């Protein structure tokens, strides 16, 4: 029979300390310490994620990667072509076209992407090596080659946390490229996205590209700009008895293998 010890004292002391830290953190008293400590600890995170990325890249098919890159490039060309066609039509109709404002992007390295099983299950969030000191703010969109990665949800002085577009808490208005069907892209977790709330009168097509419709974007770049690629429609669920139809959307990005992304800080 093992000897009993006075663990109650230890429990009470450290529970009290934890609760003090928790309360101070909730109020915001620990923000400077929090930011400083995150800055000190981030190189370890960065190193681990870098090593992990190298290991997972080692076994990946290079041909598949080339095809993926080509696919992304072709989709972008198709979007640009559609935009040009729209512009021409608008010019013909003598509408004034406002030039798109230049976009400021901040390059950021991914230093953490926690997923349940590394390399198998998709991550839900990303940790970036850029923070408030680099102009990063909560609500800004994060992209990679015109593909939407997610939104910044938390920031510290040196780091920021991004909620991926596939996260269950993620929701944004979208449209399809060829049919202009409107809907809401909801993250399903585990790498899945559903385009929901599409009225039955709109047309959804398989392999159609899903783009952001655009939220309110202020001068700090807060919000999601229009025409960023969310993914591609892979299957459609439409029943006449339902009010809305929905589609499964697959992002063109492999979020688990992203090492560099861009944050839109000014629009």
């Amino acid at each position: 029979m093992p000897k009993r010890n006075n663990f109650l004292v230890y429990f009470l002391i450290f529970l009290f300390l934890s609760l003090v830290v928790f309360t101070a953190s909730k109020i915001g008293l620990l923000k400077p310490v929090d930011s400083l400590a995150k800055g000190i600890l981030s190189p370890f995170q960065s190193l681990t994620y870098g090593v992990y990325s190298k290991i997972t890249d080692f076994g990946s098919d290079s041909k598949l990667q080339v095809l993926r890159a080509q696919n992304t490039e072709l989709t972008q060309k198709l979007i640009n072509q559609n935009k040009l066609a729209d512009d021409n039509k608008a010019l013909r109709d003598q509408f004034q076209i406002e030039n798109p404002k230049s976009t400021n992007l901040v390059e950021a390295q991914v230093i953490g992407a926690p997923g349940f099983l590394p390399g198998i299950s998709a991550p839900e969030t990303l940790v970036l090596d850029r923070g408030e000191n680099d102009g990063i703010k909560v609500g800004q969109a994060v992209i990679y080659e015109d593909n939407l990665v997610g939104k910044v949800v938390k920031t510290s002085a040196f780091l920021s946390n991004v909620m991926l577009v596939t996260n269950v808490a993620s929701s944004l208005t979208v449209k399809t490229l060829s049919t202009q069907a409107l809907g809401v892209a909801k993250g399903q977790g585990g790498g899945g996205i559903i385009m929901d709330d599409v009225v039955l009168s709109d047309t959804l097509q398989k392999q159609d590209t899903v783009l952001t419709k655009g939220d309110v974007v202020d001068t700090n770049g807060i919000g999601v700009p229009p025409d960023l690629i969310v993914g591609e429609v892979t299957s459609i669920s439409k029943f006449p008895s339902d009010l809305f139809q929905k589609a499964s959307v697959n992002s063109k990005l492999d979020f688990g293998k992203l090492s560099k992304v861009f944050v839109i800080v000014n629009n």
Partner: protein
Amino acid sequence: MKFLAVLLLSIALILEASITTIPFVLLILLVFMAASRANWLFILAFVFGILLDLMGFKTLGISSTFFIIVLFLILLYQSKFEIATGVFILAVSFLSSFGYLFLLGYHQNLFLQAALSSIIGLIMFKLVLRVNIKG
């Protein structure tokens, strides 16, 4: 024993902050508590909980509070159950992982994650016991 615990917790901390949501820090703490019943584990639970919150963008203190309560419950049950057994570790790992992942909002495949965590906990417990006996 202390050195091994700190070493494993440091590795677990980095892994949990960078690439996985499996609660390795929690599992190591409860495995060492069941094997050694040492009070210094409360200090490690506090320190590594804070570090984990810092690196994982969580509210500071949330992990350490949870870890400390779990360790306390393990010690509280030592008079009712034999805590240094595989069955106890399996059950505690499952329940605590489930609670911890739920608390942090990892609701995707929650049962599967908790089940896998309990198996990892059991394997770690067997390894720690072996090292402990040899040491």
